[in-house]
């Protein structure tokens, strides 16, 4: 019985052990790895992914996922530049020349709305979350293509680009923002009523309902949050690149997923922490950076990342096995019934 409790505990913090091991590996095999500049670089690369992972983690905790986040990033990142930029070559904006504050507000409202639609379809219309967010992924990407006819928009606005390029001393602004958001997110998840209720919903939705939680409301809220953060990430990325391609963010969703799950945020819901997710983000980005420094071909990096994800998943699958064993027995014992431990809910 002791072992059964010890192993999950170890596995929960596995991500940090892995990170440590990876850092140690690179530190020993590569020059320039253990430098401040390199660490800052890693964090810089992790920032956009990190913001998306925060949003995804919130939905994952409730036992849902948001495949559409990358498309929301793409759309909002594009619209951000689109609204404030002149039309026609060489910048290809809309010509609307909206004030910056309005543009930023608008793109976040759009992200919010996309999240809200996702949430409503999933809770009120009871459509499967995979199907809804997948369809949204495709549709929003389509809208993005439509907006500027597939043409990349370029930003020359220093104010806009500030979020991506500015630095506070040696530290890039995106890094600060990303870390701040993570800390805030962690506080919300671990120390607010909202966060607690998310865990309850993910672990046992009906029991949560019977305890006074409103699962539907919370689920809509996390999708809104995911959409909002995706919009913000879109601003960050397009600001950093100073342009927005219509394909911006395409394919990112898989890495987002991977980072969250590697970091211990369970696909089943009700398990994991934002801190762990941060670990997942750092692990993936560190591996990428380390391999880069080793002059490993960027293509190896892709493959290796995939393998890491796979390994992490295998471990997660084992975790589930270890953790679920005692529960089943208890359930059967207390209901006195067979595998259907419903305790004989009356028909009346």
């Amino acid at each position: 019985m002791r072992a059964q409790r010890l192993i999950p505990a170890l596995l929960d913090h596995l991500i940090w052990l892995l990170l440590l091991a990876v850092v140690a590996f690179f530190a020993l095999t590569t020059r320039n790895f253990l430098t401040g500049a390199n660490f800052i670089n890693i964090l810089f690369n992790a920032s956009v992914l990190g913001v998306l992972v925060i949003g995804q983690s919130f939905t994952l905790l409730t036992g849902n996922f948001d495949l559409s986040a990358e498309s929301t990033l793409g759309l909002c990142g594009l619209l951000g530049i689109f609204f404030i930029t002149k039309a026609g070559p060489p910048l290809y904006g809309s010509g609307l020349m909206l004030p910056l504050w309005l543009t930023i507000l608008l793109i976040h409202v759009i992200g919010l709305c996309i999240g809200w639609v996702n949430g409503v379809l999933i809770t009120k219309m009871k459509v499967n979350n995979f199907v809804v967010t997948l369809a949204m992924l495709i549709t929003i990407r389509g809208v993005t293509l439509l907006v500027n006819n597939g043409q990349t928009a370029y930003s020359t606005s220093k104010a806009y680009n500030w979020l991506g390029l500015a630095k506070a001393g040696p530290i890039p602004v995106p890094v600060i923002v990303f870390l701040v958001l993570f800390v805030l997110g962690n506080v919300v998840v671990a120390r607010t009523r909202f966060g607690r209720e998310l865990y309850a919903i993910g672990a046992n939705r009906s029991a949560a309902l019977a305890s006074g939680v409103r699962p539907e409301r919370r689920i809509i809220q996390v999708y809104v949050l995911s959409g909002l953060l995706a919009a913000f990430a879109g601003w960050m990325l397009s600001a950093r690149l100073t342009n927005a391609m219509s394909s911006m963010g395409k394919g990112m969703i898989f890495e987002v997923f991977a980072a969250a799950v590697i970091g211990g945020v369970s696909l089943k819901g009700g398990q994991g922490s934002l801190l762990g997710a941060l670990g997942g983000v750092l692990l993936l980005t560190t591996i990428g950076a380390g391999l880069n420094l080793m002059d490993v071909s960027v293509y190896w990096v892709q493959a290796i990342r995939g393998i890491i994800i796979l390994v992490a998943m295998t471990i997660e699958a084992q975790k589930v096995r270890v953790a679920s064993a005692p529960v089943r027995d208890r359930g059967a014992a207390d209901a006195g019934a067979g595998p259907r431990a419903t305790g004989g809910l009356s028909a009346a």
Partner: protein
Amino acid sequence: MDTEAYLVEMKGVTKDFPGVRALAGVDFRLRQGGELRGLVGKNGAGKSTLMNVLTGVYPSDAGEIVVRGKSFARMTTTLSRQLGIACVHQHSQLVGPLSIAENVFCGALPTGRLGLVDWDTVNREAEERLGRLGLAIDVRRKVEGLSVAERQIIEIAKALFAEAQVIILDEATAPLPKSDVELLFGFVRRQREKGVAFVYISHYLEEIFELCENVTVMKDGRNIGDYAVSELTPPALIRAISGVEVERFRHASAASGGRPVLEVRDLSRPGSYSHVSLTLARGEIVGLTGLEGCGKDSLARGLFGLEPAGQGEVLLDGSPYHASDPREALDQGLAYLPRDRHGLGIIGARSIQENITLPILSRLTNAAGLLSARKETELVSRLIALLDVVTPSAAQPIQFLSGGNQQKVVFAKLVSASPRVLLLDEPTQGVDVQAKVEIMKIIDRLSREQQVATLVISEEIGELLDVCDRILVMFRGRIAAEFETSDPGTTVERILRAVEGAAQS
């Protein structure tokens, strides 16, 4: 009787789960040549567990199983199937999107030329086989379009095709219209005449009396009697099932007079209950009992907002009360302890602390709006002590506690919400004897110290007599009788008669 005369003999079967002995030395026998055996008992009595041991789903910890004279210490699902024992339960063993014929031949479809499936043969043979059992149904229909009764008949048919000689129907009828039940019973009787033995597990005693020849009663993991149905009366059966508890705790009324806390006026919900009226006074403990399906738990769930309450009026301390979800109920001061502890009562993977504080998180915040660890630990420790929950720490996941302690944690959760009214559905179910007493004392203390008005829904009439001031009986959706426990004329027999539906004398 020598062993050869029995088709199946279970001798001294014992099964333990962590914290609970589900079966304690159970003997169970089925005769050769066909039998219609009812298997009854309250939830947690061990009926399904016993059958699960017979079908090999659970290995027994002691005892032996003898089938047609051959003895087996270990039973497996494959072995059980080979021996001709099959089980039909609420989890369908049919593939919904496929046709009846295909389901009949699932895994063994007849093939014709080129090794391709011969659909003509499939359909023809299926129709023939079902016909031989006395069924005429379009075998091309998809299973998912069938009614529950029809599906169960097909499942029984499948078992028969696999040469099953013992068919266990585990809570097979659940909510079924009378006509469908007739259909099923007619089919079952015909097969019994051909020598098949049926074990019929059900809460609906009317059905036991209608269908079965014999009935085995289980209680607390023991077989407390095999009876011929013809020699039983319904009240005698009910009494055997619920038993009469040895008095070890007596509650003295702590009800204060004045306007009732909860008033239910003429509440009706089609299909569940009709024209229910009751009152609960401050500090009063009222019991609510009746047969499965009488509406007592629907009523509680309706009042708590888990289901629609229906038409009618409900007043809480004189003001109109309405809850469209549990949150609203809790906010207005009404709390509910669910019968299904695992599905609705506890969140197994989360800690004891989180389970307790979940409904009242808004009260545990500090100035910044964050949860205050101090306030939380204070509250939780106080409640754990108050309710005497045995646990090394409040941070432990609740799933590792025993049933009794889990139930106490659920109580703690309800208490934390400072309710005015408590609705408890089978509060002592799945809990060991000692914990039962402790829980009854908790209920008593709450009414005394906090003047909480409590409604206890239970089929344990003995326990109700111990802890309640009044007992209401529901029958077929209506309040059929009311008893004062202080009245010496209130006996288990009288209550049982009301439960069974006899008019009040």
